[in-house]
């Protein structure tokens, strides 16, 4: 069974969302990381970092305008 790590990075300024995601994927190595962000900039930055590190990224837009990023490896 793979681990799931959840991160709420909503409302945080650059570069904190991407730092939190980076720490999580470094620590987990494999599994699923779910990252909540509320800006398109954080969505792109976290996605770029995850893809660069070899993780698959899917993005779900939430009803209130934030984004749930599901990172898998």
């Amino acid at each position, binding site marked *: 069974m793979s681990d799931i790590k959840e991160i709420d990075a*909503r*409302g*945080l*300024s*650059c*570069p*904190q969302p*991407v*730092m939190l995601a*980076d720490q999580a994927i470094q620590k987990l190595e494999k599994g699923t990381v779910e990252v909540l962000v*509320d*800006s*398109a*900039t954080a969505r*792109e930055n976290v996605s*770029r*970092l995850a893809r*660069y590190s070899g993780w698959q990224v899917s993005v779900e837009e939430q009803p209130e*305008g934030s984004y749930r990023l599901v990172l898998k490896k």
Partner: protein
Amino acid sequence: MSFISRFLMSRWGPIVTGIVVGILAPVLVKLGNPGNMGVCVVCFSRDIAGALGLHRAGVVQYIRPEIIGFVLGALVAALIFREFKPRTGSAPIVRFLLGMFAVFGALVFLGCPWRAYLRLSGGDWNAIFGILGLVVGIWVGVVFLRMGFSLGRSRPAPKAMGWVMPAIMVVLLLLLILAPQFGRDANGNPTGPIFFSPSGPGSQHAPLIISLVIGLFIGFLAQRSRFCTVGAIRDVILLRDAHLFYGILALIAAAFITNFALGQFHPGFEKQPIAHTDELWNFGGMVLAGLAFTLAGGCPGRQLFLSGEGDGDAAVFVSGMIVGAGFAHVYTIASSPAGVGAFGPMSVIVGLVVCIVIGLTMRETKA
């Protein structure tokens, strides 16, 4: 439209933005802006502070349309692409202080990161010390970020709040066009409320409409591409990510070529436009600026673009910059081509102490 947006959000976005800024900034100089100052967010904030009478340095007073364009261009892009999201509540008073001290540091050097790169590409080698200082300041900021520094979370805010900064920019545009004068003193000097320099850098400007349109265009591009002249270096140090850094390289290369083509490339240390040759404080001023911008999450241009997206905290940072620019000229903190100001070095030291205390003490509080 969505194709253009996707392109600007790709790896090419910061590069295209950098090339556009690198070409248009020297063109603005050719059309009348001060030397190596096609775009300087801090210098232009200082000119706006002067035009509003927050300082009375008569040579640096003008309401710069580029700044207005940056905010309104970003607003238009954010509205079109559904990214206008009013938000606030992330340590506004600390951001105000960071804006003030960032400007103190930048005005000791005589330029924000945008102008540091533009000065370099115009052959002003004094900028090398400023850029080295900028890198060191950003590196110190990264150390604080790694230690857990955070200004805390913003919260969604009413739509109306997001319109405050764009509305202020529209008022500034009206003041620029109307230039109201309420009277003159006994010596015949205008008593304001709006002051425009009769001579000096403040009197040098490209035609209003051209400056405004270029500002709008850059604001639009930069909002889509997330262009940031401080984040570029921060991300390389922190994440080994050069996405934004390529934008800076593109800016410097394009500005060098354009300056060369327009006969504006004059290599050397001496007699550079609106610059001094004090290596230590060119370096030290930008250490402070780099640290303050990094703690606030982005360069002064980025703060303008964010405030156009409805970010009330970035708008408070911009307010801190304009008020700080007023202080910088009232208290002789800002340098001049003659050298550093009387209280410039002391202000940089005080600013560094304040920023270090902020870096060590600000942490996210749990609900």
